């Protein structure tokens, strides 16, 4: 028997509680969604309207039953049973030799079931009723009975789980909502970008992110409370959604200010122009509107209130989900709006100034690019700000742009370990006597180009 280690137990060992204003992930079996907790405001999960008052004060990871539009806390042991039930219900068996249509064996009519539901009968009671009125339930094998039960439970017991957003959950959520939304950046590709770029606390990273800030959020999560991210965007100002996933992490505002600054890619490119040119640009662009004190590595911008311009990705809004009026919006008057607008602009300029100061040293620790634009020019430009011996990773939904980028980088001769890859991600159904790869899979997780920047070779002495 080995001796046990002596170790200090963590002092912060309590369960985190859901609070008003938190960004949370609501997950049901078939869907998950990011919302901000607001007692007075309804959230939507698919067509289901939900009031979130009932979750405040409960620990993250809790399950809730949906009754009407309200959420009721569920005992953890019970919710666990339901989770495992889903796995079995989803199990598919190809052997349908004795397949008998289920539909005719139920004595309750659809109308009767609907009556029960609207009559406020709990999901569990409905399932019990269904079992009693099934003519075939008794004759089923034990396995088939379990399967039937779980299937019905899944249908009639409407549970959701409230989770604290993490890179994993955000990545899963965005991908399930439509992979193209995040350029098909699948979780395995994202994971590899972070690893290949050696993302860690105290590092300084350049991130070009066309996927709702998911990549930026993933890097920020790995910084802990020190390091920095320069988030580069294609337009002169960021899009309204450029930090959606970042805000979802519920980082303290001061922390975010300390870690994250934004910069248009054009401004980054200007830093590389001959000095004479650079000075002029600098003067004209750090406009006199700066209000906060701009210490190095600290942006005095209230990030959550930051100016955001509508872009093509958020301009298509499902009206259903926007019925509920924004409470701040309705409170705000015109002049306050104008003021806020000016503030945001100033703050953006402030961020830009700091970002340029950071980049100008050309000593960044990693570059991560997910772009809806062709990556080559972006990569060639931003690579200039990396210190030698630092890695980079470029992701694309398509293969050919990365072939082009590979070629240009190869020609330039300032990189080692250039690799173009894709990964296959397969998930498995593991159940007794029913184990096989998932019936459906993602056909592509995108392509990845990785490498390490080095100093260009001055002399070719190799014989």
């Amino acid at each position, binding site marked *: 028997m080995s001796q046990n280690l002596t170790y200090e137990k963590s002092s912060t060992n309590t369960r985190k509680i859901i609070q008003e204003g938190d960004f949370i992930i609501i997950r049901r079996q078939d869907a998950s*969604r*990011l*919302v*901000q907790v607001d007692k007075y405001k309804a959230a939507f999960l698919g067509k289901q309207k939900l009031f979130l008052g009932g979750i405040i004060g409960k620990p993250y990871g809790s399950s809730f039953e949906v009754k009407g539009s309200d959420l009721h806390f569920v005992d953890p042991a019970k919710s666990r049973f339901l989770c495992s039930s889903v796995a079995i219900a989803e199990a598919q*068996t*190809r*052997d*349908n*030799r004795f397949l008998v249509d289920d539909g005719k064996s139920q004595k309750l009519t659809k109308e009767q079931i609907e009556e029960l539901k609207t009559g406020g009968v709990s999901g569990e009671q409905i399932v019990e009723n269904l079992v009693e009125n099934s003519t075939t339930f008794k004759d089923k094998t034990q396995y088939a009975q379990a399967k039937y039960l779980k299937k019905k439970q899944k249908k009639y017991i409407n549970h959701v789980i409230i989770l604290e957003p993490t890179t994993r959950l955000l990545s899963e959520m965005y991908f399930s*909502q*439509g992979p*193209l*939304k995040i350029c*098909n950046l699948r979780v395995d590709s994202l994971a590899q970008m972070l690893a290949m770029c050696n993302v860690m606390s105290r590092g300084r990273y350049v991130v070009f992110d066309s996927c*709702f800030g998911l990549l930026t959020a993933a890097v920020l999560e790995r910084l802990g409370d020190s390091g920095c991210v320069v988030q580069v965007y294609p*337009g*002169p*100002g960021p899009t*309204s*959604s450029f930090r*959606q996933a970042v805000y979802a992490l519920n980082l303290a505002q001061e922390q975010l200010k300390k870690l994250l600054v934004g910069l248009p890619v*054009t401004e980054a*490119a200007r830093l590389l122009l001959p000095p004479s040119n650079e000075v002029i640009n600098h003067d*004209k662009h750090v406009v006199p509107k700066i209000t906060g004190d701009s210490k190095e590595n600290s942006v005095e911008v209230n990030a*959550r209130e930051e100016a*955001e*311009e*509508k*872009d*093509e*990705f*958020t*301009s*298509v*809004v499902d009206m259903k989900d926007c019925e509920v009026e*924004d409470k*701040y919006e309705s409170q*705000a008057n015109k002049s306050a709006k104008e003021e*806020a*607008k000016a503030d*945001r602009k100033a703050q953006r300029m402030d961020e830009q100034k700091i970002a340029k100061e950071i980049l100008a040293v050309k000593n960044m620790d990693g570059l991560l690019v997910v772009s*809806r*634009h*062709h990556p*080559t*020019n*972006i990569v060639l*430009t931003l690579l200039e700000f990396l210190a030698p011996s630092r890695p980079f990773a470029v992701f694309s939904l*398509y293969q*050919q742009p990365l072939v082009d980028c590979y070629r240009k980088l190869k020609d330039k001769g300032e990189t080692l370990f250039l690799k173009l890859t894709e990964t296959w991600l*397969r*998930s498995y159904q593991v159940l007794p*006597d*029913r184990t*096989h*790869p998932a*019936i*459906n899979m993602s*056909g*592509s997780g995108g392509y990845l180009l990785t490498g390490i920047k080095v100093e260009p070779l001055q002399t070719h002495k190799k014989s």
Partner: protein
Amino acid sequence: MSFIEYRDLVKNGDTVLIYLSISNIYALKITSGKVFQTKYGALKHDSIIGKRYGNVVQCSRGWAYVLFLTPELWTLTLPHRTQILYTPDISLVILQLDLKPGKVVCEAGTGSGSLSHALARTIAPTGQLYTFDFHEQRVSLAREEFQEHGLGDIVTVQQRDVCAEGFGLEDIADAMFLDLPHPWEAIPLMNVSFRCSGGRLCSFSPCIEQVQKTCEALHTGGFTDITTLECLLRPFEVKEVSLPHLHLSEETLNKTRKISLESQDGTTDVKKEETGKINTNSLDDTTGDAVSFSKSNSKRSRIEKSMENVCEAEWAAVPSLQIPGHTGYLTFATFTHS
């Protein structure tokens, strides 16, 4: 009409493929006087009779192609009475079983006949397919189909529980295909059915536990060259792809700055700004399309336009986003009589 001999012109009684679009294809038995309703309106069977296969036929509000039905097209259109095998698996089964004209094959179970048609095609005109199914109705439906498809001489269908009784055939099979829930129960009964020169066997199972028991039974039963394969189709969409370039050269940057400076003074052209709080309710309502960029009328789009090339679209093969992840495991083995 016969699956095993091409014909140039459509005859009354032929089963043909009607192609309206890639997602609207139908196997249709031509019966003089009948009318087939399509999304392009009525299609008179009589207007098809006498047409050359591969030609266009008229519907009342459009047109359709009439095609000769191959086993592969049949697989795409057949009525599903069970889950079926698809062409990637089917083609591998046929090659790995060494099938060719004249071979004798035993199949259990018949299912919806997707594999049976391809087997019959390959061993025709001199081979024989004996196919069995546990389910009576499926057997009679399959028998009818084989007859209608000109395979009556090649294929014999019978109701039988092969797991319990074996094929009931002696010294005849060159190859066997098993798609059974418990193939390991059937395997010890297979030996007698193989020809004295031996032959090949394939067992299809969706779950790995079935494969494990099958391989064990094959080992015990004296089979050799036991191999388990999985074959997955990865389709590509061939389309024009254009990623806009961002131009970051000195010249472009200077041009951009001018636009940027112009709008620095006035803010009127920044039409829309959001309030501070993010409308999280709209998080998943945007569908990102990586290819097309609709331009907003803000100053940003003016600058972006100046930086972006007129995109040169390239043709590329893009992997489909959702693909089948698993059909089943194919276990192959060789049988030699001792």
